[in-house]
């Protein structure tokens, strides 16, 4: 029987979802890091440069940069080009505001470094009501 690993977050919002993790120990800003038309990380120095974030559960360290993400997540969602969920060690208010407007589930604040705990490509279930992320496999 597979043993499912569960991590609990201090902060949570949104609906329950399942999907594939895209993981890096790096920051996130919709304006600074993304080509939002192509749906890929575009900042050359970002650890996920060139990779698509669309429909993935982004597991990253922290929110970076400016305030634009609050609108941009909503805009990406309107075109079906948003991440499925955010799982971060910490977030700033902008990412939370953007997740709230764009209806993207979000967890933040873990005891362990969540970017080290979750393998890239893992199948995850996010349950914001319980404040947990479960590694399914």
């Amino acid at each position, binding site marked *: 029987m597979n043993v499912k690993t569960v991590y609990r977050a201090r902060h949570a919002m949104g609906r329950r979802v399942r999907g594939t993790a895209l993981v890096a120990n790096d920051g996130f800003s919709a304006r600074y890091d993304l080509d939002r038309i192509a749906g890929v990380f575009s900042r050359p120095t970002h650890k996920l440069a060139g990779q698509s974030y669309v429909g993935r559960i982004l597991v990253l360290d922290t929110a970076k940069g400016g305030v634009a993400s609050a609108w941009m997540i909503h805009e990406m969602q309107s075109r079906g080009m948003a991440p499925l969920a955010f799982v971060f060690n910490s977030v700033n208010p902008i990412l939370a*505001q953007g997740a709230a407007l764009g209806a993207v589930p979000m967890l933040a604040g873990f005891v362990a470094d969540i970017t080290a705990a979750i393998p890239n490509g893992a199948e995850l279930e996010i349950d914001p009501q319980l404040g947990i992320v479960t590694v399914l496999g």
Partner: protein
Amino acid sequence: MLMKLNDEERDILAGKLGPVPQQALQHQIAVGDFFGAEDFVAVTQAHIMADTESLGDAGVRWLERMAAATEGRRRVCIPTITDPRGTDFSKAAYLGQTQSMLDLERRAIAAFVKLGVVMTDTCINYQTIQAPTRNEHLAFGDTGVVIYSNSICGARSNFEGGPSAVSAGLTGRTPRYGFHLSEHRRATIHFHVDFTPASLNDWGALGALIGRIAGNYWAVPVIEGIEGAPRSDQLKHFGAAMASFGSIALFHLVGITPEASRLSDVALPNLPTHRITRDDVAALQQSYRKDGKIDVVVFSAPQLSLFELRTLADLCDGKRFSVPMLAVTSPQVKPDADRMGFTARIEDAGGTVMSGMCFYQSYAREIAEAKGWKRLVTNSAKLVNILGGYGYQPMLESMEACVDAAVTGRLE
């Protein structure tokens, strides 16, 4: 819902004041609950970042739906102003901006005006509109505006993205968490700087290094070693870069900023300490440098003050540029720059002075493609940090070196 509401807030949430403030409060509660806010705090001003590149059609429709409401309260109830827009309409053709970009911009402006928002279009409102006061609770957008208001003015604001700043304007309040609370304003990391920068790019680079090390929104740097009284423009670049590189919203300069007369006012003993040298600041700038041909010089982010434009005009006298040079300021400063002759002196050299926008908030990727601009030189550390993701090769130099590069078309 976890937040405690007063009678007025319960009425708003029940829709008794109409659907517009109701929707705004619902959004604010979602954010407040996420961060564990106990209740709301009344705010006196709101500042909205809402360039149309960020909004997109979806964001503009969100605003238009609010502006089209016919029932209840439909206008902001506190002074609510705007960050730079996505264009300077008089320069849009020069920048290669398309009709659809301008149409979207006009729709956004029309919605904001219907909502009662004052279109100041500036990220230097603390220099030009109304400087915040100590302990004033605000709902400000633009990270540079927030970090300056918190740190230099001693006001209290979180980063409020556009949707939240609009909501705060409509409800007159914001969730009480983060930098509205005294316990979050104490320093978490200590820096000792062994020199005092002079140029704006050096101030920006120092802010960038501190932001990069401090590393996240909840960190509060306290800095010792700065001598004398820095000028507003220097602290503007310092804070804007720190906020950009680190998502930092508050810093303390011991003996300078209002909450830190002494280190012990804001810091417990034994905070983690970092030392930053002049060589560190030079190395950060060198890391962006690429000698050779350049495509464009940009002064922006934050918008230039009247005195930055005067200094730039002095440097432009007798020069002739071989590559485009853009200087971006606020709609409040531009008429003064025109009246004092600064605009004419910059444009006589071949430069272009724009207002009401900011370079990176104006479809920078599409401008690069339309104009063939890639190798960009600026004195703004914030701008070099942002533009890498937009496909530029940005370089950070002094204002003097930027002007020289605009003349020769090269960085040597």
